[in-house]
């Protein structure tokens, strides 16, 4: 089992733990937490695409770095993940704002209609 396999296993586990939360939880805050777990898994997967056995940080630190160019990991997925993290932060803030609005109008964070509301809906 190589490091890439471990990255793959952990990122797929994170993505599917998050999917499980989105599918089965009823609380909006828990659903948002699950969405963030999915996002973390996807970011890990993207970084893992640039992984390389025995790779080094893609930063030149001294004149010796020129000898290790071939050993550096791929910097492009890291740049993409930076974008992804920032946008994830913005969308999470927006979703939490919507959650506060939902709580003010419905008085609950539950996405499932309770018994009384179901009765009124049927009538």
């Amino acid at each position, binding site marked *: 089992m*190589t490091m890439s396999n471990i990255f793959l296993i952990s990122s797929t586990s994170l993505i599917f733990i998050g999917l*499980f939360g989105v599918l089965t939880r009823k609380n909006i805050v828990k659903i948002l937490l699950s969405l963030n777990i999915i996002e973390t898994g996807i970011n890990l997967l993207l970084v893992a695409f640039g992984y*390389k056995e025995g790779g080094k940080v*893609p930063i030149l630190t001294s004149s010796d770095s*020129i000898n290790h160019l071939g050993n550096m990991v*791929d910097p492009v997925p890291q740049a993409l993940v930076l*974008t992804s993290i920032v*946008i994830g932060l913005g969308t999470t803030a927006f979703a939490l*704002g919507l959650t*506060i609005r939902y709580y003010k109008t419905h008085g609950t964070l539950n996405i499932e209609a309770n018994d009384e509301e179901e009765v009124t809906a049927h009538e």
Partner: protein
Amino acid sequence: MKNDKSLLLNILAIAFLAVLAYFIYSVATSNDIGIKVTDNNVVENRVAYRYLNKNVLDENSKYEWGGKAEDSAANVVTSIVADYRLFDTSLEVIVLFITVMGFGLVIPKENIKIKESTELLYHWTPLLMTYMLLVGGYMFINGHISPGGGFPAGAIMSTAILVGVLAGKQTVSHTTLKKIEAIAGTLIFSIATLGFFLKGSFFINFLEGGNVGDLFSAGLIPILYTLVAFKVAAELSGIYFEFYEGGEEHDNV
């Protein structure tokens, strides 16, 4: 009865997702034709290799420590974020701006009381804020040499402002933050347009020169990252003020 049903649904969901996850894992690691995550690609196919061995400025230019290069940033990730894919990054800043604006739109404007801060937090806040602003400033100034950059620096600086808000100190007003954000955003796109007029390409790095690894190198990258840091810090701090000043508006009405 209802609990039994939800337990059954949970077990079904776990079983379904486990099968799906196993399928995806086995496809990703199988030995058939195609590119796999687990492929240990040859070095020559990596982007880093091609980037670092480029030969753009002239015949003899080579990327090395202390030498001249196309955009002399020692941090390759910064080079990609703030030079080659700068258009992407600028649109990312706009996306952040729009989500924060939307947050201000959907948040209910009601009186939210902030608890009085404790004595300890109140007196330690100036010291904490100084250190946080120092770390944030260091990160965006050195973004092209060492790990860091505009986005994490902006997040750290906005945390400093959050500490100020929690301690009940008057640090910056919401209007000042909006002005900082507007000025930074306008400057980013002014520099981009200036590049169009000087070199004929939008967002081109028109300040050349500097050696790889120097503080004053990499042309426009430190300038743009500084602007990005201030814009991100102002945007994120705006979120705290949306909570905090909404109440005041309500009081005036």
